[in-house]
C-alpha cells in the first residue's frame, strides 16, 4: 500500500540531509511502528509523506496505492486516503471543531467525486464517533484545539481520523503528553479502526504505546535510515536496553 524507496530528504532552508535513503513498505491491513531516538528523522518522514513545506526530496520515491505522493498537493494526498495525526495539533481560533471537520469531510468527498454529506447525516455520525472517544458535545463546539488539554488534542486527532476514514494513517508521537488513561482511549480509538485494509504507521519514541496498539512490524530508525526491522519483540528490546545496544550492533 505505502511504498517508500530510497527516500533522501534535505531541509529547504539549509543544506542539511535529514533522511538518507529510507526504504519502507506498509501492506494493507498492517500496523508498522517506527521507533528511534530524537533527531533520527521520524517526524520528518511523516511531514514529507504528507507534503509539508520546508523539505526537498533529493532522491527516491513514495507511493500510496500506486499514486506518486511526492507529486501531489497536501489536500490531494489527503483525498487519496493519507492521514497524519499531528504530534502538535494546531489551534484554529474561532473555527468550531465540528465546522472544521465537516468542511474537511466534504472537501475530501468532493475530491473523490462524492456528494456532500448532509448536516443530519454528519451530525449523527460525529456524535457516535465522539461518544466512543469520550469527546463531549462541548468539545465538538469549541474552536479547533483551542484550550484543549494534551489528551483532548490527541483524542480530537483520532476523532478526525475516524470521521475521514483514511486508507493510510500516520500517527506522529501520538503518545507524547498523554497519561495512561488518555493513552488507552487513544489506543482503543486506533484499534477500532484497524483492519478493513487500512495501513498504519505509528511513530513513537517509547514502547509503551505499543503495549496498547500491537504492531505487526517494528522498525528502528537512526540518523535518517531504518537500521533494523523485526516483530513486536524489537520494541520490547528497546524498552529494556534503550537504543544504544541496537545502534552499536548495527553500526
Amino acid at each position: 500500500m505505502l511504498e517508500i524507496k530510497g527516500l533522501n530528504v534535505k531541509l529547504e532552508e539549509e543544506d542539511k540531509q535529514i533522511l538518507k535513503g529510507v526504504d519502507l513498505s506498509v501492506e494493507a491491513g498492517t500496523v508498522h511502528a517506527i521507533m528511534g531516538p530524537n533527531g533520527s528523522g521520524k517526524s520528518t518522514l511523516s511531514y514529507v509523506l504528507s507534503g509539508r513545506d520546508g523539505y526537498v526530496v533529493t532522491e527516491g520515491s513514495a507511493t500510496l496505492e500506486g499514486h506518486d505522493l511526492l507529486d501531489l498537493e497536501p489536500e490531494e494526498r489527503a483525498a487519496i486516503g493519507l492521514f497524519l495525526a499531528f504530534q502538535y495539533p494546531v489551534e484554529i481560533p474561532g473555527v468550531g471543531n465540528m465546522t472544521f471537520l465537516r468542511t474537511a469531510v466534504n472537501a475530501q468527498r468532493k475530491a473523490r467525486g462524492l456528494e456532500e454529506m448532509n448536516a443530519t447525516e454528519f451530525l449523527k455520525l460525529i456524535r457516535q464517533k465522539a461518544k466512543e472517544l469520550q469527546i463531549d458535545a462541548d468539545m465538538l463546539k469549541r474552536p479547533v484545539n483551542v484550550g484543549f488539554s494534551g489528551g483532548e488534542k490527541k483524542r480530537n486527532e483520532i476523532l478526525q481520523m475516524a470521521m475521514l476514514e483514511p486508507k493510510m494513517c500516520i500517527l506522529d508521537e501520538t503518545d507524547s503528553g498523554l497519561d495512561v488513561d488518555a493513552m488507552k482511549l487513544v489506543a482503543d480509538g486506533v484499534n477500532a479502526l484497524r483492519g478493513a485494509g487500512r495501513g498504519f504507521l505509528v511513530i513513537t519514541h517509547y514502547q509503551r504505546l505499543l503495549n496498547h496498539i500491537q504492531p505487526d512490524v517494528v522498525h528502528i530508525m537512526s540518523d535518517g535510515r531504518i537500521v533494523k526491522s523485526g516483530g513486536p519483540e524489537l520494541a520490547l528490546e528497546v524498552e529494556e536496553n534503550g537504543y544504544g545496544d541496537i545502534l552499536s550492533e548495527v553500526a
Partner: protein
Amino acid sequence: MATLDQTTEVKEGVDQETVDAVREVGGKYKYGWETDIEMDYAPKGLTEDIVRLISTKNEEPQWMTDWRLEAYRRWLSKKEPEWAMVDYPQIDFQDQYYYARPKSMEQKPKSLDDVDPKLLDTYAKLGIPLKEQMILAGVEGAGDTPAEARDGERKVAVDAVFDSVSVGTTFQKELKNAGVIFCSISDAIRDHPELVKKYLGSVVPVSDNFYATLNSAVFSDGSFVYVPPGVRCPMELSTYFRINAENTGQFERTLIIADKGAYVSYLEGCTAPQRDKSQLHAAVVEIIALEDAEVKYSTVQNWYPGDEDGKGGIYNFVTKRADCRGDRSKVMWTQVETGSAVTWKYPSCILRGDDSQGEFYSIAITNHHQQADTGTKMVHLGRNTRSRIVSKGISAGQAQNTYRGLVSMHPKAKNSRNFTQCDSLLIGDRCGAHTVPYIEVKNNSSRVEHEATTSKVDDEQMFYCRQRGMDEEEAVALIVNGFAKEVLQALPMEFAMEAQQLVAISLEGSVG
C-alpha cells in the same frame, strides 16, 4: 479558472440559467452585471440649478430646497479631507451625474405591482425579491451547529434604492399597523415633514464634513424609519442599494428614529456593476435613539471593488452617526466591508444619555488594490455610558487596511467604560494593516481599554487544514471566518451566511 465574462459567446441551446450559474462561480465579483434600462439623467456637473432640479424631481417643499441650497453653498467653501490613509486620483465633481432615475419611475408606481419588471428582476437577481414574501430563515448561521433547525420563517421588509430613487418598499401595510413608518426619505419629506424637519441634520449637521455636506445638497433618496414609543418593530427592515448608471454618484440619506422604548433592527446591502471607471458614493446615515430605545444597524457593503489591477471600483465616503439621545438608549453598528476601491467610513455613537451604550463590530476585508480607512468614534457625554469596539481588518494582495478610532470621555461622562479590540490579519506580504486609535479622557472615573494584535495566516494552520483535505482557498476562508467570527455573530442571521460567503469570495485568488 477561466471565467465567463458578459461578452463570452454562448452556444445555442445552453440554458441562460446555466450560464449565469457558471458566471457566478467563475467570476470574481458576482454582482458586476448591469441592468439595461432607460434612464433620466440630470445634466452632468453640480450647480445650484442641479440642486434645485433634484429637489423639484422629488417634489419637495420649499424648506427642503432651501436646506439643500444652504448645504451646497457651504460645500463650495469646503475642502476634501486628506488625513485618511487612502490614495486616489482627484475626483472631478463636475464630471458626475447627480441624479439618475429609471424612465419607468417617472410616475411613481402606486404599488409593487406597477414597478417595471426589469427593476424587479434586478433585485431578484441580487437575491432580494421585492415580493412581499417570507424570507426563508433556514440558512445556516455563523454558528457551529449545522442542521440545528431554526424555527419558522421570518419576515424582512425591504426598501430598494436604484441609482437615485427608491423603487419600492415592501410590507408597508403590516408595518403601518404596528405604527412603524418605513418609506423612502423623499416620501417622508412629503408625508411626515414634522419628523424630518425635527431630526434631519440633527446628528450629522449640514456642514459636518466635505462629503456629508455634499450629500446634504444632492441626496436623492434613501430610507426613513420611525418607530413610535414602546413599539418593537415586528420585522427586520432592510434597504438594498444598487448603483447601476454610469458616471453617476449615489448619495443616499437614511434617517432612523427610535422613539422612547422602541426597538428596530435595520440591514443595509450594497452592490454595483463592474466598470473601468470609478464611481462615487457618499451617503449619510443618521440614527436617533430616545430613552430606552435600541437600534441595531447592520451593513454588508459589497460595492464593486475594482479589478485586480486596481482599475475602477466605488469610492465610498460615508458618514454614519448615531445619537443615543435618551437615557439607557443603545445603538449597535455591525459592518462587513468587502467591497469598494476606497472606503472612508466611521460609524459613530454619541452617548449623550446617561447609561447609554454604543457598540461597533466591524470586519473590513481588502484585497488586490483596495484601501479601507474605517473605524468608529465613541463620544461619551453622559454618565455611566458604555462602549465596545471590535474591529477586524483583513488584508490580502496589495491592499491597505486602517483602523481609525476615537474614544472620547467628556468631563461629565463619569464612570464610563470603553473596551476596544482591534485585530489585523495579513494574508501575504505585500499588504498592510494600520491601527490609529485616538483616546481622550477628561475625567478620572472612566476607564478605557485598548487591545490590538496583528497576525499572519499561519503556515501551520494552513498545512493542518490542507492535510485534512481542504484546498488553499477553502483553508484561508475557514481560518479568516474564524478570525472574523465575533463580528459575524453580531449580524442578523439572514446576513451572517451571506457575509460568510462574501468573505470567501473577496479573498478568492489571494493565496498561492
